[in-house]
């Protein structure tokens, strides 16, 4: 009881003294969404890490990898895809730079280009799926290949949808500005994340 009264008076003192977030008692906490989003991505990367490790284990256990009779993976198209996806990371960064200069129209332009590049990547993936010599159930290699790339493709799709959402919101002037641009930043961070995952995937599946 005593402790609590001491608390109260002390609280009043401190409240008027140091930082005074206006008279109403509703002190706004700083924007934690980006921090939260990054924590979420860490968690998300654990999902991929789990799948990567599973892939490695299957690979180590298998007598030959890829199993005998599996068609060799074509490297040209995925390579091209990798270049597209990687360069799109730089493009989306331009959007971030633009929005921080309060230049929303330009940010929208960069977003559109990134979306187009992402869509190209997905189209390339689908083309590859259609022309591969194995299906989901052919063997363990094929299964892991489809699950890993499929999961990643899903993330690319989500990234594109995120950007579409940001674009949709940004049509209202003033929604994003140099001070308030969580959506833009989140989409950018997410896109970089998808990129990094793809680089690891590409290395694991095609090169190694």
């Amino acid at each position: 009881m005593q402790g609590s009264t001491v608390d109260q008076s002390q609280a009043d003192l401190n409240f008027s003294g140091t930082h005074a977030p206006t008279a109403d008692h509703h002190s706004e906490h700083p924007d934690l969404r980006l921090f939260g989003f990054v924590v979420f991505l860490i968690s998300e990367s654990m999902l991929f890490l789990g799948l990567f490790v599973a892939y490695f284990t299957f690979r180590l256990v298998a007598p030959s990898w890829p199993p005998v009779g599996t068609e060799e993976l074509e490297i040209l198209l995925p390579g091209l895809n990798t270049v597209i996806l990687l360069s799109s990371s730089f493009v989306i960064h331009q959007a971030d730079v633009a929005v921080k200069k309060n230049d929303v129209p330009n940010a929208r332009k960069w977003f559109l280009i990134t979306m187009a590049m992402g869509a190209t990547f997905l189209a390339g993936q689908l083309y590859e799926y259609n022309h591969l010599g194995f299906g989901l159930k052919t063997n363990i290699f094929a299964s892991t290949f489809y699950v890993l790339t499929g999961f990643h493709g899903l993330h690319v799709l989500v990234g594109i949808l995120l950007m579409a959402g940001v674009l949709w919101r940004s049509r209202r002037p003033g929604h994003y500005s140099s001070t308030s641009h969580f959506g833009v930043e989140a989409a950018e961070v997410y896109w970089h994340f998808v990129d990094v995952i793809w680089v690891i995937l590409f290395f694991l599946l095609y090169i190694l």
Partner: protein
Amino acid sequence: MLFAIAFVSMFVIGGLSGIMVASVPFDIHVHDTYFIVAHLHYVLFGGSVFGIYAGLYHWFPKMTGRMMDETWGRIHFALTFVGFNVTFLPMHWLGLQGMNRRIAEYEPRFAAVNLVITIGSYILAVSTIPFLINAIWSWSKGKVAGSNPWNSLTLEWTTPSPPPVENFEVDPVLTHGPYDYGHPSRAETDTMTLVS
């Protein structure tokens, strides 16, 4: 000051969760028998569920603004404690003697102990009834608790019970460590002294 909802029970419960954890190393030796069942229930039930009950009794005043009834609490604790040990303690013996888990039938030599376990589990089931009665009755008709019935030092007790929508009228300021009980400098001076 209303001192405790069975402070003793709490202490026993706290000690209990220690015993649970200490039982971990054994389970390496008795794979897939009832010893595992006993062990995991000691950890999860003895540790977590007893902890949950302790937490419920402790923070019930904060959540509802009412105290829970101590007599019913003691009955609940006694029944749970007895039921829990009658149920899960004999499982250790079953496990050491080789009764397999996850199988619906077993050798007749285990029958007597299993019957005891089943009876214990019924006691355990019955033990939730006093708790439910207590919770429901106290929620509407219990003694009004006030903001800090336990005279506790952590921040949640500095706000009314139940707390208002935005929790605190003004942002609280910490003047003492969370566990500065009996510390001479606590009430008089506001200097923060950390107990180490």
